[in-house]
């Protein structure tokens, strides 16, 4: 089996799966109807991308596991999403800031994946990048609106940035899988995206009148599965219980 490619697909697909589930938790609870529907659309886009990434992971693995089996029958330590995506929603500002931090990374990553040496990866990037371009436009505008908004919205956004910024660094981690994937031209080295990311972040945070924390220290342990936060287990309990209780249930 092509272990590196399998791992790469899990990392991409678990990011969208876990974040998609997180965002879907807002359904019916968002502050206004328009945001409620917009968040649900984003969640559905992310779940749709998950089907593609985990579908490809299952194909690469070649052991008969499809996207559903990978999503619903793995335990927390087998998940490869970055810790950022599993962080709790907090208030609406925190959710939208988390979305922006992820959208910014994903949009840069997908643009690069359009030049992947693997045709299947390229095809997923082509499709997903249009959705993500919209996600980014939306989360960016909302972050700016709230950051440069009232005293209260500004304070909440700054608190969200202080809380979530220490999860950003993990997006640019590098290990043996990343090395191999980059050498084969499937994806860029994550660290190579950092300059573009920092430039975008600096631009938007300036517009939002938010201050990026000085320290670049970062939590890690999500994308290699070694140290997920306790939040992931709770997400999986809710997300997987039906398939665990009634395997292969259909309706």
């Amino acid at each position, binding site marked *: 089996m092509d272990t590196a490619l399998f791992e790469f697909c899990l990392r991409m697909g678990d990011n969208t799966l876990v974040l998609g589930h997180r965002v879907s938790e807002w359904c019916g609870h968002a502050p*206004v*109807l*328009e945001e409620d*529907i*917009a968040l649900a*659309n984003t969640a559905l886009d992310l779940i749709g991308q998950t089907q593609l990434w985990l579908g490809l992971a299952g194909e690469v693995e070649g052991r008969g596991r499809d996207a559903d089996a990978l999503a619903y029958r793995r335990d927390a330590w087998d998940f490869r999403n970055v810790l950022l995506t599993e962080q709790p929603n907090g208030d609406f500002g925190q959710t939208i800031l988390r979305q922006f931090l992820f959208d910014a990374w994903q949009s840069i990553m997908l643009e690069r994946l359009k030049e992947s040496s693997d045709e299947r990866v390229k095809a997923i990037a082509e499709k997903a990048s249009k959705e993500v371009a*919209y996600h980014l*436009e*939306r989360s960016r*505008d909302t972050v700016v*609106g709230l950051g440069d908004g009232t005293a209260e919205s500004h304070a909440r956004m700054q608190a969200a940035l202080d809380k979530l910024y220490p999860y950003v660094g993990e997006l640019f981690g590098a290990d043996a899988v990343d090395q191999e994937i980059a050498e084969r031209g499937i994806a860029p080295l994550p660290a190579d995206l950092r300059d573009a990311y920092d430039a975008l972040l600096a631009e938007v945070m300036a517009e939002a009148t938010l201050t990026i924390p000085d320290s670049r220290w970062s939590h890690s342990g999500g994308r290699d599965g070694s140290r997920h936060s306790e939040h992931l287990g709770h997400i999986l309990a809710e997300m997987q219980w039906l398939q665990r209780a009634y395997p292969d249930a259909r309706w």
Partner: protein
Amino acid sequence: MSKEWPLWEIFIRGQHGMSHRHVGSLHAPDAEMAIKNARDVYTRRNEGVSIWVVEAKHIAASSPSDKGPLYEPSESKVYRHPTFFDIPDDVGAM
């Protein structure tokens, strides 16, 4: 200043339609967000290729109580419909 977002009327041109049609309304802080919200609320099932938004307060409307003077006079004027002409067969469907 009101804390509520203003109301916007949304017009969408469908895939095959020639003109924008009114599809409903929504709230948004500005025109740009109104377009984004319209995209999410009204085009998620592939309904449109173009969106117009107009802040509701800018729409001038006729009054329902004026419907007598405004519309009833035209009810009895069938000659305004172009149905009294013989159309040559060669013209085909018009």
